[in-house]
Protein backbone atom coordinates (compact mmCIF):
# COMPACT_ATOMS: atom_id res chain seq x y z
CA UNK A 1 0.00 0.00 0.00
CA UNK A 2 2.53 2.56 1.13
CA UNK A 3 5.02 1.28 -1.40
CA UNK A 4 2.51 1.71 -4.16
CA UNK A 5 1.75 5.28 -3.10
CA UNK A 6 5.36 6.24 -2.84
CA UNK A 7 5.97 4.77 -6.26
CA UNK A 8 3.11 6.75 -7.73
CA UNK A 9 4.35 10.02 -6.24
CA UNK A 10 7.82 9.32 -7.49
CA UNK A 11 6.57 8.50 -10.97
CA UNK A 12 4.48 11.70 -11.08
CA UNK A 13 7.52 13.68 -10.05
CA UNK A 14 9.76 12.08 -12.65
CA UNK A 15 7.16 12.69 -15.34
CA UNK A 16 6.88 16.35 -14.25
CA UNK A 17 10.63 16.92 -14.30
CA UNK A 18 10.79 15.25 -17.69
CA UNK A 19 8.03 17.45 -19.11
CA UNK A 20 9.70 20.61 -17.77
CA UNK A 21 13.00 19.58 -19.35
CA UNK A 22 11.17 18.81 -22.58
CA UNK A 23 9.58 22.27 -22.57
CA UNK A 24 13.01 23.86 -22.13
CA UNK A 25 14.37 21.74 -24.93
CA UNK A 26 11.50 22.83 -27.19
CA UNK A 27 12.15 26.51 -26.49
CA UNK A 28 15.87 26.13 -27.12
CA UNK A 29 15.29 24.17 -30.33
CA UNK A 30 13.01 26.96 -31.60
CA UNK A 31 15.93 29.38 -31.22
CA UNK A 32 18.26 26.84 -32.85
CA UNK A 33 15.94 26.19 -35.79
CA UNK A 34 15.42 29.86 -36.52
CA UNK A 35 19.12 30.69 -36.33
CA UNK A 36 19.93 27.65 -38.49
CA UNK A 37 17.57 28.67 -41.30
CA UNK A 38 18.79 32.26 -41.10
CA UNK A 39 22.41 31.17 -41.45
CA UNK A 40 21.64 28.63 -44.17
CA UNK A 41 19.57 31.01 -46.29
CA UNK A 42 21.26 34.30 -45.52
CA UNK A 43 24.95 33.59 -45.12
CA UNK A 44 25.52 32.93 -48.83
CA UNK A 45 24.05 36.34 -49.65
CA UNK A 46 26.36 38.32 -47.42
CA UNK A 47 29.21 39.85 -49.38
CA UNK A 48 30.73 43.25 -49.99
CA UNK A 49 27.92 44.21 -52.39
CA UNK A 50 25.47 44.24 -49.50
CA UNK A 51 27.29 47.20 -47.99
CA UNK A 52 28.40 49.05 -51.11
CA UNK A 53 25.41 48.84 -53.48
CA UNK A 54 21.84 50.04 -53.22
CA UNK A 55 18.67 47.99 -53.51
CA UNK A 56 18.49 46.73 -57.09
CA UNK A 57 15.78 46.26 -59.67
CA UNK A 58 14.86 42.59 -60.00
CA UNK A 59 17.49 40.69 -61.96
CA UNK A 60 20.40 43.06 -61.44
CA UNK A 61 23.15 42.94 -58.85
CA UNK A 62 22.67 45.07 -55.78
CA UNK A 63 22.95 45.36 -52.05
CA UNK A 64 21.31 46.95 -49.07
CA UNK A 65 23.46 50.05 -48.56
CA UNK A 66 20.61 52.58 -48.68
CA UNK A 67 18.53 50.48 -46.30
CA UNK A 68 21.37 50.02 -43.81
CA UNK A 69 22.21 53.73 -43.84
CA UNK A 70 18.52 54.69 -43.57
CA UNK A 71 18.00 52.35 -40.65
CA UNK A 72 21.10 53.67 -38.91
CA UNK A 73 20.02 57.31 -39.34
CA UNK A 74 16.47 56.73 -38.11
CA UNK A 75 17.64 54.65 -35.16
CA UNK A 76 20.16 57.39 -34.39
CA UNK A 77 17.47 60.09 -34.32
CA UNK A 78 15.23 57.82 -32.27
CA UNK A 79 17.93 57.02 -29.72
CA UNK A 80 18.87 60.68 -29.19
CA UNK A 81 15.23 61.55 -28.44
CA UNK A 82 14.58 58.40 -26.43
CA UNK A 83 17.71 58.76 -24.29
CA UNK A 84 16.96 62.39 -23.40
CA UNK A 85 13.29 61.80 -22.64
CA UNK A 86 13.79 58.38 -21.09
CA UNK A 87 16.66 59.24 -18.77
CA UNK A 88 14.98 62.45 -17.57
CA UNK A 89 11.64 60.72 -17.05
CA UNK A 90 13.29 57.79 -15.30
CA UNK A 91 15.22 60.21 -13.11
CA UNK A 92 12.00 61.99 -12.17
CA UNK A 93 10.40 58.67 -11.22
CA UNK A 94 13.39 57.54 -9.16
CA UNK A 95 14.56 60.82 -7.58
CA UNK A 96 11.65 63.24 -7.46
CA UNK A 97 8.02 62.27 -7.81
CA UNK A 98 8.01 58.49 -8.12
CA UNK A 99 6.01 57.95 -4.93
CA UNK A 100 3.38 60.60 -5.61
CA UNK A 101 0.02 59.71 -7.10
CA UNK A 102 1.09 61.25 -10.40
CA UNK A 103 4.27 59.18 -10.24
CA UNK A 104 2.26 55.98 -9.93
CA UNK A 105 0.11 56.96 -12.90
CA UNK A 106 3.18 57.74 -15.02
CA UNK A 107 4.88 54.46 -14.09
CA UNK A 108 1.74 52.44 -14.77
CA UNK A 109 1.04 54.01 -18.15
CA UNK A 110 4.71 53.83 -19.11
CA UNK A 111 4.54 50.08 -18.50
CA UNK A 112 1.47 49.91 -20.72
CA UNK A 113 3.21 51.96 -23.41
CA UNK A 114 6.16 49.55 -23.11
CA UNK A 115 4.12 46.68 -24.48
CA UNK A 116 1.62 48.59 -26.62
CA UNK A 117 1.41 47.36 -30.22
CA UNK A 118 4.08 49.15 -32.24
CA UNK A 119 1.79 49.48 -35.26
CA UNK A 120 -0.43 51.85 -33.26
CA UNK A 121 2.59 54.06 -32.62
CA UNK A 122 3.02 54.13 -36.40
CA UNK A 123 -0.60 55.19 -36.89
CA UNK A 124 -0.22 57.91 -34.25
CA UNK A 125 2.91 59.36 -35.81
CA UNK A 126 1.21 59.21 -39.21
CA UNK A 127 -1.59 61.42 -37.87
CA UNK A 128 0.85 63.59 -35.89
CA UNK A 129 3.67 64.17 -38.36
CA UNK A 130 3.06 62.65 -41.79
CA UNK A 131 -0.43 64.00 -42.45
CA UNK A 132 0.14 67.63 -41.32
CA UNK A 133 3.42 67.88 -43.28
CA UNK A 134 2.01 66.08 -46.31
CA UNK A 135 4.67 63.48 -46.74
CA UNK A 136 6.40 60.41 -45.44
CA UNK A 137 9.82 61.18 -44.00
CA UNK A 138 12.74 59.59 -42.25
CA UNK A 139 12.22 62.06 -39.43
CA UNK A 140 8.70 60.72 -38.84
CA UNK A 141 10.18 57.22 -38.76
CA UNK A 142 12.70 58.36 -36.18
CA UNK A 143 9.97 59.87 -34.01
CA UNK A 144 7.94 56.65 -34.20
CA UNK A 145 10.96 54.58 -33.18
CA UNK A 146 11.72 57.04 -30.37
CA UNK A 147 8.23 56.53 -28.99
CA UNK A 148 8.94 52.81 -28.80
CA UNK A 149 12.40 53.17 -27.28
CA UNK A 150 11.63 55.89 -24.71
CA UNK A 151 9.48 53.71 -22.37
CA UNK A 152 12.23 51.07 -22.36
CA UNK A 153 14.86 53.64 -21.38
CA UNK A 154 12.55 55.17 -18.75
CA UNK A 155 11.90 51.80 -17.15
CA UNK A 156 15.53 50.69 -16.98
CA UNK A 157 16.69 54.13 -15.81
CA UNK A 158 14.25 54.10 -12.90
CA UNK A 159 15.13 50.53 -11.95
CA UNK A 160 18.86 51.22 -12.03
CA UNK A 161 18.68 54.54 -10.15
CA UNK A 162 16.60 52.95 -7.40
CA UNK A 163 19.40 50.42 -6.89
CA UNK A 164 21.85 53.21 -6.04
CA UNK A 165 22.32 53.42 -2.26
CA UNK A 166 20.85 56.46 -0.54
CA UNK A 167 24.18 57.04 1.19
CA UNK A 168 25.55 58.21 -2.15
CA UNK A 169 22.87 60.91 -2.42
CA UNK A 170 23.40 61.93 1.19
CA UNK A 171 27.13 62.16 0.56
CA UNK A 172 26.50 64.51 -2.33
CA UNK A 173 24.16 66.71 -0.32
CA UNK A 174 26.61 66.71 2.62
CA UNK A 175 29.29 68.09 0.36
CA UNK A 176 26.99 70.98 -0.37
CA UNK A 177 26.30 70.02 -3.94
CA UNK A 178 23.06 71.08 -5.55
CA UNK A 179 20.54 68.32 -6.07
CA UNK A 180 20.96 68.16 -9.82
CA UNK A 181 24.73 68.14 -9.48
CA UNK A 182 24.42 65.22 -7.06
CA UNK A 183 22.23 63.37 -9.53
CA UNK A 184 24.44 64.13 -12.49
CA UNK A 185 27.85 63.57 -10.95
CA UNK A 186 27.12 60.85 -8.40
CA UNK A 187 23.89 58.98 -9.07
CA UNK A 188 24.10 58.89 -12.87
CA UNK A 189 27.80 58.16 -12.80
CA UNK A 190 27.34 55.28 -10.39
CA UNK A 191 24.59 53.89 -12.57
CA UNK A 192 26.51 54.41 -15.82
CA UNK A 193 26.76 50.77 -16.83
CA UNK A 194 23.09 50.17 -16.18
CA UNK A 195 22.04 53.26 -18.14
CA UNK A 196 24.20 52.10 -21.05
CA UNK A 197 22.54 48.70 -20.94
CA UNK A 198 19.10 50.29 -20.97
CA UNK A 199 20.07 52.27 -24.06
CA UNK A 200 21.48 49.19 -25.76
CA UNK A 201 18.37 47.12 -25.07
CA UNK A 202 16.16 49.93 -26.39
CA UNK A 203 18.35 50.12 -29.49
CA UNK A 204 18.08 46.36 -29.98
CA UNK A 205 14.32 46.63 -29.67
CA UNK A 206 13.89 49.32 -32.33
CA UNK A 207 16.49 48.17 -34.84
CA UNK A 208 14.22 45.36 -35.99
CA UNK A 209 10.92 47.22 -35.77
CA UNK A 210 9.01 47.24 -39.03
CA UNK A 211 5.39 48.05 -38.32
CA UNK A 212 5.86 51.68 -37.17
CA UNK A 213 8.04 52.48 -40.20
CA UNK A 214 5.56 51.30 -42.82
CA UNK A 215 3.46 54.47 -42.76
CA UNK A 216 5.98 56.95 -41.42
CA UNK A 217 9.29 56.53 -43.27
CA UNK A 218 7.72 54.43 -46.05
CA UNK A 219 10.65 53.21 -48.18
CA UNK A 220 13.09 54.54 -50.74
CA UNK A 221 14.71 52.66 -53.57
CA UNK A 222 17.65 55.03 -53.76
CA UNK A 223 20.45 56.18 -51.53
CA UNK A 224 19.40 59.29 -49.63
CA UNK A 225 20.72 61.16 -46.61
CA UNK A 226 17.82 63.62 -46.46
CA UNK A 227 15.63 62.69 -43.52
CA UNK A 228 12.78 64.94 -44.68
CA UNK A 229 12.16 62.55 -47.58
CA UNK A 230 10.91 58.94 -47.49
CA UNK A 231 13.76 56.81 -46.17
CA UNK A 232 14.63 53.17 -46.74
CA UNK A 233 15.11 50.91 -43.77
CA UNK A 234 16.35 47.37 -43.46
CA UNK A 235 13.11 45.93 -42.04
CA UNK A 236 10.90 47.65 -44.62
CA UNK A 237 13.12 46.40 -47.46
CA UNK A 238 13.02 42.88 -46.03
CA UNK A 239 9.23 43.08 -45.86
CA UNK A 240 8.98 44.21 -49.48
CA UNK A 241 11.57 41.77 -50.87
CA UNK A 242 10.52 38.71 -48.91
CA UNK A 243 6.97 38.93 -50.24
CA UNK A 244 8.13 39.52 -53.81
CA UNK A 245 8.21 36.88 -56.53
CA UNK A 246 11.90 37.34 -57.44
CA UNK A 247 14.49 34.89 -56.16
CA UNK A 248 17.31 37.45 -55.99
CA UNK A 249 15.13 39.84 -53.97
CA UNK A 250 14.28 37.02 -51.58
CA UNK A 251 17.98 36.23 -51.26
CA UNK A 252 18.63 39.85 -50.29
CA UNK A 253 15.77 39.68 -47.78
CA UNK A 254 17.34 36.64 -46.11
CA UNK A 255 20.74 38.34 -45.99
CA UNK A 256 19.10 41.42 -44.45
CA UNK A 257 17.22 39.31 -41.92
CA UNK A 258 20.46 37.60 -40.91
CA UNK A 259 22.17 41.01 -40.52
CA UNK A 260 19.37 42.35 -38.30
CA UNK A 261 19.13 39.20 -36.20
CA UNK A 262 22.90 39.07 -35.63
CA UNK A 263 23.01 42.77 -34.73
CA UNK A 264 20.12 42.49 -32.29
CA UNK A 265 21.39 39.30 -30.67
CA UNK A 266 24.91 40.62 -30.21
CA UNK A 267 23.63 43.88 -28.70
CA UNK A 268 21.50 41.84 -26.31
CA UNK A 269 24.45 39.69 -25.29
CA UNK A 270 26.74 42.73 -24.82
CA UNK A 271 24.05 44.33 -22.63
CA UNK A 272 23.82 41.23 -20.48
CA UNK A 273 27.59 41.04 -20.11
CA UNK A 274 27.61 44.64 -18.86
CA UNK A 275 24.88 43.81 -16.32
CA UNK A 276 26.73 40.69 -15.18
CA UNK A 277 29.96 42.68 -14.72
CA UNK A 278 28.13 45.33 -12.73
CA UNK A 279 26.68 42.72 -10.43
CA UNK A 280 29.98 41.08 -9.56
CA UNK A 281 31.74 44.37 -8.92
CA UNK A 282 32.29 44.84 -5.16
Amino acid at each position, binding site marked *: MTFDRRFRRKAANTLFVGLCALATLLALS*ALGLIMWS*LLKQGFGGINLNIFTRDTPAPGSIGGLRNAIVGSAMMCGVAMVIALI*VGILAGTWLAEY*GGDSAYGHVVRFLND*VLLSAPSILVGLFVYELVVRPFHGFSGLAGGVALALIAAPVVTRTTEDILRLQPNALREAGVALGA*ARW*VTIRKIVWRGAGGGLLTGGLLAFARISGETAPLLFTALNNQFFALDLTKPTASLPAVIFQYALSAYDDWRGLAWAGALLIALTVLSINIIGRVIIARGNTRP
Partner: protein
Amino acid sequence: MADIPLTAPRPTRAASKGAWFDPIFQFACLSAATLLLAALGGIIVSLAIGGWPALHKFGLGFFTDTTWNPVTEVYGAAGPIAGTLITSALALILALPIALGVSVFLVEFCPRRAAQPIAIAVELLAGIPSIVYGMWGLFVLAPWFALHVQLPLMMNIPAGSVWEKVFYGVPNGANIFTASLILAVMILPYMAAVFRELFLTVPAQVRESAYGIGCTPFEVVRSVTIPYVRSGMVGVIMLGLGRALGETMAVTFIIGNAHGLPQSLFDSGSTLASTIANEFTEATGEMHTAALTALGLVLFVITFSVLAVARALLLRQRQD
Protein backbone atom coordinates in the same frame (compact mmCIF):
# COMPACT_ATOMS: atom_id res chain seq x y z
CA MET B 1 14.03 69.11 14.33
CA ALA B 2 10.84 70.65 15.62
CA ASP B 3 12.66 72.11 18.64
CA ILE B 4 14.47 74.66 16.56
CA PRO B 5 12.33 77.78 16.26
CA LEU B 6 11.93 78.84 12.68
CA THR B 7 12.84 82.41 13.50
CA ALA B 8 16.20 81.55 15.02
CA PRO B 9 19.07 83.10 13.15
CA ARG B 10 20.56 80.40 10.97
CA PRO B 11 24.25 80.19 10.31
CA THR B 12 24.82 81.89 7.02
CA ARG B 13 26.01 79.60 4.28
CA ALA B 14 26.45 80.29 0.62
CA ALA B 15 23.88 78.58 -1.52
CA SER B 16 25.23 75.54 -3.35
CA LYS B 17 26.88 76.30 -6.61
CA GLY B 18 24.40 75.75 -9.35
CA ALA B 19 21.44 75.55 -7.01
CA TRP B 20 19.55 77.95 -9.26
CA PHE B 21 19.38 75.20 -11.86
CA ASP B 22 17.70 72.74 -9.48
CA PRO B 23 14.08 73.73 -10.19
CA ILE B 24 14.77 73.88 -13.92
CA PHE B 25 16.26 70.39 -13.86
CA GLN B 26 13.37 69.03 -11.84
CA PHE B 27 10.92 70.64 -14.24
CA ALA B 28 12.75 69.11 -17.22
CA CYS B 29 12.48 65.68 -15.62
CA LEU B 30 8.79 66.19 -14.87
CA SER B 31 8.16 67.34 -18.44
CA ALA B 32 9.84 64.24 -19.82
CA ALA B 33 7.60 62.06 -17.66
CA THR B 34 4.56 64.03 -18.76
CA LEU B 35 5.62 63.69 -22.39
CA LEU B 36 5.26 59.92 -22.07
CA LEU B 37 1.73 60.34 -20.74
CA ALA B 38 0.96 62.78 -23.54
CA ALA B 39 2.18 60.22 -26.07
CA LEU B 40 -0.22 57.61 -24.77
CA GLY B 41 -3.04 60.15 -24.68
CA GLY B 42 -2.10 61.28 -28.18
CA ILE B 43 -2.39 57.73 -29.48
CA ILE B 44 -5.94 57.42 -28.13
CA VAL B 45 -7.04 60.83 -29.38
CA SER B 46 -5.50 60.48 -32.86
CA LEU B 47 -7.00 57.02 -33.33
CA ALA B 48 -10.40 58.21 -32.16
CA ILE B 49 -10.37 61.25 -34.45
CA GLY B 50 -9.01 59.33 -37.43
CA GLY B 51 -11.42 56.45 -37.01
CA TRP B 52 -14.51 58.52 -36.21
CA PRO B 53 -15.86 58.81 -39.80
CA ALA B 54 -15.95 55.00 -40.12
CA LEU B 55 -17.47 54.45 -36.68
CA HIS B 56 -20.03 57.16 -37.33
CA LYS B 57 -21.04 55.78 -40.72
CA PHE B 58 -21.26 52.09 -39.84
CA GLY B 59 -22.22 52.42 -36.17
CA LEU B 60 -22.35 49.24 -34.14
CA GLY B 61 -22.52 47.26 -37.36
CA PHE B 62 -18.80 47.96 -37.75
CA PHE B 63 -18.12 45.39 -35.05
CA THR B 64 -20.49 42.69 -36.32
CA ASP B 65 -20.28 42.99 -40.09
CA THR B 66 -17.89 40.58 -41.84
CA THR B 67 -17.82 42.46 -45.15
CA TRP B 68 -14.59 44.31 -45.90
CA ASN B 69 -14.86 45.75 -49.37
CA PRO B 70 -12.82 48.82 -50.42
CA VAL B 71 -14.57 48.88 -53.80
CA THR B 72 -18.11 49.31 -52.47
CA GLU B 73 -16.75 51.17 -49.42
CA VAL B 74 -18.43 48.85 -46.95
CA TYR B 75 -16.29 48.02 -43.95
CA GLY B 76 -16.96 45.59 -41.11
CA ALA B 77 -14.37 44.61 -38.54
CA ALA B 78 -15.79 41.27 -37.40
CA GLY B 79 -13.29 39.23 -39.42
CA PRO B 80 -10.11 40.89 -38.14
CA ILE B 81 -11.49 41.08 -34.59
CA ALA B 82 -12.28 37.36 -34.60
CA GLY B 83 -8.90 36.58 -36.19
CA THR B 84 -7.09 38.60 -33.53
CA LEU B 85 -8.91 36.98 -30.63
CA ILE B 86 -8.62 33.43 -32.01
CA THR B 87 -4.90 33.59 -32.85
CA SER B 88 -4.04 35.22 -29.52
CA ALA B 89 -6.05 32.69 -27.50
CA LEU B 90 -4.54 29.76 -29.40
CA ALA B 91 -1.04 31.18 -28.99
CA LEU B 92 -1.64 31.56 -25.27
CA ILE B 93 -2.86 27.97 -24.93
CA LEU B 94 0.21 26.72 -26.80
CA ALA B 95 2.74 28.93 -25.03
CA LEU B 96 1.49 28.72 -21.44
CA PRO B 97 2.48 25.11 -20.61
CA ILE B 98 5.85 25.52 -22.30
CA ALA B 99 6.59 28.81 -20.52
CA LEU B 100 5.61 27.27 -17.18
CA GLY B 101 7.77 24.23 -17.91
CA VAL B 102 10.79 26.32 -18.84
CA SER B 103 10.57 28.56 -15.78
CA VAL B 104 9.95 25.69 -13.34
CA PHE B 105 12.84 23.78 -14.89
CA LEU B 106 15.17 26.77 -14.57
CA VAL B 107 14.18 27.59 -10.99
CA GLU B 108 13.81 24.10 -9.52
CA PHE B 109 15.63 21.41 -11.45
CA CYS B 110 18.31 22.90 -13.62
CA PRO B 111 21.91 22.74 -12.38
CA ARG B 112 23.01 26.24 -11.27
CA ARG B 113 25.76 26.38 -13.81
CA ALA B 114 23.46 25.76 -16.76
CA ALA B 115 20.50 27.85 -15.59
CA GLN B 116 21.93 31.26 -16.53
CA PRO B 117 22.99 30.38 -20.09
CA ILE B 118 19.68 28.65 -20.76
CA ALA B 119 17.73 31.60 -19.36
CA ILE B 120 19.70 33.97 -21.61
CA ALA B 121 19.15 31.74 -24.66
CA VAL B 122 15.39 31.68 -24.04
CA GLU B 123 15.37 35.45 -23.58
CA LEU B 124 17.25 35.86 -26.85
CA LEU B 125 14.15 34.41 -28.51
CA ALA B 126 12.43 37.61 -27.40
CA GLY B 127 15.14 39.67 -29.08
CA ILE B 128 14.62 38.22 -32.55
CA PRO B 129 12.73 40.86 -34.57
CA SER B 130 9.15 40.16 -35.53
CA ILE B 131 9.93 40.36 -39.24
CA VAL B 132 12.50 37.57 -38.93
CA TYR B 133 9.86 35.37 -37.31
CA GLY B 134 7.59 36.25 -40.21
CA MET B 135 10.12 35.21 -42.85
CA TRP B 136 10.91 32.03 -41.00
CA GLY B 137 7.24 31.26 -40.64
CA LEU B 138 6.46 31.88 -44.31
CA PHE B 139 9.45 30.15 -45.89
CA VAL B 140 10.32 27.41 -43.40
CA LEU B 141 7.42 26.63 -41.07
CA ALA B 142 4.53 27.00 -43.53
CA PRO B 143 5.85 24.64 -46.24
CA TRP B 144 6.87 22.08 -43.62
CA PHE B 145 3.52 22.33 -41.91
CA ALA B 146 1.60 21.97 -45.18
CA LEU B 147 3.58 18.92 -46.24
CA HIS B 148 3.90 17.05 -42.96
CA VAL B 149 0.79 18.03 -41.03
CA GLN B 150 -1.90 19.52 -43.20
CA LEU B 151 -1.80 17.13 -46.17
CA PRO B 152 -1.62 13.91 -44.12
CA LEU B 153 -4.49 15.13 -41.96
CA MET B 154 -6.64 15.95 -44.99
CA MET B 155 -5.89 12.57 -46.58
CA ASN B 156 -6.66 10.49 -43.54
CA ILE B 157 -9.77 12.12 -42.19
CA PRO B 158 -12.96 10.19 -42.94
CA ALA B 159 -15.17 12.20 -45.26
CA GLY B 160 -18.14 13.88 -43.63
CA SER B 161 -16.77 13.90 -40.07
CA VAL B 162 -16.52 16.99 -37.88
CA TRP B 163 -12.75 16.92 -38.27
CA GLU B 164 -13.04 17.55 -41.95
CA LYS B 165 -14.62 20.90 -41.14
CA VAL B 166 -12.05 21.73 -38.44
CA PHE B 167 -9.05 20.99 -40.66
CA TYR B 168 -10.48 22.39 -43.88
CA GLY B 169 -8.23 24.81 -45.71
CA VAL B 170 -5.87 25.44 -48.62
CA PRO B 171 -2.82 23.27 -47.89
CA ASN B 172 -0.19 26.02 -48.14
CA GLY B 173 0.59 26.35 -44.44
CA ALA B 174 -0.43 30.01 -44.26
CA ASN B 175 -3.37 29.92 -41.89
CA ILE B 176 -4.77 30.77 -38.46
CA PHE B 177 -3.04 27.84 -36.79
CA THR B 178 0.50 28.45 -38.06
CA ALA B 179 0.10 32.14 -37.20
CA SER B 180 -0.82 31.12 -33.65
CA LEU B 181 2.18 28.78 -33.56
CA ILE B 182 4.56 31.61 -34.48
CA LEU B 183 2.84 33.92 -31.97
CA ALA B 184 3.29 31.26 -29.30
CA VAL B 185 7.05 31.12 -29.94
CA MET B 186 7.18 34.91 -29.77
CA ILE B 187 5.35 35.35 -26.45
CA LEU B 188 6.98 32.31 -24.83
CA PRO B 189 10.21 34.06 -23.75
CA TYR B 190 8.36 37.02 -22.18
CA MET B 191 6.11 34.75 -20.19
CA ALA B 192 8.93 32.42 -19.17
CA ALA B 193 11.06 35.35 -17.97
CA VAL B 194 8.31 36.86 -15.79
CA PHE B 195 7.24 33.44 -14.47
CA ARG B 196 10.83 32.82 -13.44
CA GLU B 197 10.99 36.21 -11.72
CA LEU B 198 7.76 35.37 -9.88
CA PHE B 199 8.91 31.93 -8.78
CA LEU B 200 12.11 33.43 -7.41
CA THR B 201 10.04 35.68 -5.11
CA VAL B 202 8.68 32.66 -3.21
CA PRO B 203 10.53 32.71 0.13
CA ALA B 204 13.04 29.90 0.54
CA GLN B 205 11.61 29.00 3.99
CA VAL B 206 8.18 28.26 2.55
CA ARG B 207 9.56 25.94 -0.08
CA GLU B 208 12.05 24.36 2.25
CA SER B 209 9.40 23.58 4.82
CA ALA B 210 7.39 21.79 2.14
CA TYR B 211 10.46 19.78 1.21
CA GLY B 212 11.01 19.20 4.92
CA ILE B 213 7.72 17.36 5.36
CA GLY B 214 8.65 15.09 2.48
CA CYS B 215 7.08 16.67 -0.58
CA THR B 216 8.50 15.77 -3.97
CA PRO B 217 9.60 18.70 -6.15
CA PHE B 218 6.43 18.26 -8.23
CA GLU B 219 4.28 18.58 -5.11
CA VAL B 220 6.20 21.64 -3.96
CA VAL B 221 5.62 23.37 -7.29
CA ARG B 222 1.96 22.34 -7.46
CA SER B 223 0.91 23.03 -3.89
CA VAL B 224 3.30 25.74 -2.69
CA THR B 225 5.02 27.71 -5.46
CA ILE B 226 2.13 28.12 -7.87
CA PRO B 227 -0.55 29.01 -5.27
CA TYR B 228 1.90 31.52 -3.75
CA VAL B 229 2.17 33.51 -6.98
CA ARG B 230 -1.37 32.98 -8.26
CA SER B 231 -2.43 36.58 -8.94
CA GLY B 232 0.94 37.31 -10.50
CA MET B 233 0.50 34.35 -12.79
CA VAL B 234 -2.76 35.72 -14.13
CA GLY B 235 -0.85 38.95 -14.74
CA VAL B 236 1.80 37.12 -16.76
CA ILE B 237 -0.87 35.39 -18.83
CA MET B 238 -2.52 38.73 -19.59
CA LEU B 239 0.89 40.20 -20.46
CA GLY B 240 1.46 37.40 -22.97
CA LEU B 241 -2.02 37.95 -24.35
CA GLY B 242 -1.34 41.67 -24.73
CA ARG B 243 1.81 40.93 -26.72
CA ALA B 244 0.04 38.43 -28.94
CA LEU B 245 -2.90 40.75 -29.67
CA GLY B 246 -0.77 43.53 -31.10
CA GLU B 247 1.89 41.51 -32.88
CA THR B 248 1.98 42.66 -36.47
CA MET B 249 4.68 41.68 -38.92
CA ALA B 250 5.04 37.97 -38.17
CA VAL B 251 1.29 37.48 -38.39
CA THR B 252 1.04 39.54 -41.58
CA PHE B 253 3.49 37.16 -43.28
CA ILE B 254 1.78 33.95 -42.36
CA ILE B 255 -1.92 34.35 -41.66
CA GLY B 256 -2.94 34.38 -45.33
CA ASN B 257 -4.61 37.80 -45.22
CA ALA B 258 -8.17 36.91 -46.11
CA HIS B 259 -11.03 39.08 -44.91
CA GLY B 260 -14.08 37.57 -43.33
CA LEU B 261 -14.53 35.12 -40.50
CA PRO B 262 -12.14 32.17 -40.51
CA GLN B 263 -14.17 29.01 -41.14
CA SER B 264 -11.75 26.43 -39.74
CA LEU B 265 -8.49 25.99 -37.86
CA PHE B 266 -6.53 25.80 -41.11
CA ASP B 267 -8.39 28.62 -42.88
CA SER B 268 -6.61 31.82 -43.79
CA GLY B 269 -7.68 34.94 -41.93
CA SER B 270 -6.50 38.35 -40.82
CA THR B 271 -5.94 40.24 -37.59
CA LEU B 272 -6.53 43.89 -36.75
CA ALA B 273 -2.80 44.64 -36.89
CA SER B 274 -2.13 42.66 -40.08
CA THR B 275 -5.00 44.36 -41.92
CA ILE B 276 -3.64 47.79 -40.99
CA ALA B 277 -0.09 46.84 -41.99
CA ASN B 278 -1.22 45.45 -45.33
CA GLU B 279 -3.62 48.12 -46.47
CA PHE B 280 -2.83 51.43 -44.81
CA THR B 281 -0.32 52.81 -47.32
CA GLU B 282 -2.45 51.61 -50.21
CA ALA B 283 -5.78 52.79 -48.81
CA THR B 284 -8.05 53.80 -51.66
CA GLY B 285 -10.01 56.61 -50.07
CA GLU B 286 -10.80 58.63 -46.99
CA MET B 287 -13.27 56.04 -45.72
CA HIS B 288 -10.77 53.19 -46.20
CA THR B 289 -8.17 55.06 -44.13
CA ALA B 290 -10.79 55.89 -41.50
CA ALA B 291 -11.92 52.26 -41.29
CA LEU B 292 -8.30 51.11 -40.85
CA THR B 293 -7.73 53.72 -38.15
CA ALA B 294 -10.92 52.52 -36.45
CA LEU B 295 -9.41 49.02 -36.48
CA GLY B 296 -6.42 50.56 -34.72
CA LEU B 297 -8.72 52.07 -32.11
CA VAL B 298 -10.38 48.69 -31.49
CA LEU B 299 -6.95 47.08 -31.15
CA PHE B 300 -5.87 49.82 -28.76
CA VAL B 301 -8.91 49.44 -26.53
CA ILE B 302 -8.50 45.64 -26.37
CA THR B 303 -4.74 45.66 -25.69
CA PHE B 304 -4.91 48.60 -23.31
CA SER B 305 -7.48 46.90 -21.09
CA VAL B 306 -5.63 43.58 -21.15
CA LEU B 307 -2.26 45.20 -20.39
CA ALA B 308 -3.74 47.42 -17.68
CA VAL B 309 -5.21 44.39 -15.90
CA ALA B 310 -1.92 42.51 -16.31
CA ARG B 311 0.16 45.33 -14.84
CA ALA B 312 -2.28 45.85 -11.97
CA LEU B 313 -2.17 42.15 -11.05
CA LEU B 314 1.64 42.01 -11.26
CA LEU B 315 1.93 45.16 -9.19
CA ARG B 316 -0.31 43.69 -6.49
CA GLN B 317 1.77 40.51 -6.42
CA ARG B 318 4.94 42.54 -5.99
CA GLN B 319 3.47 44.52 -3.11
CA ASP B 320 2.20 41.43 -1.25
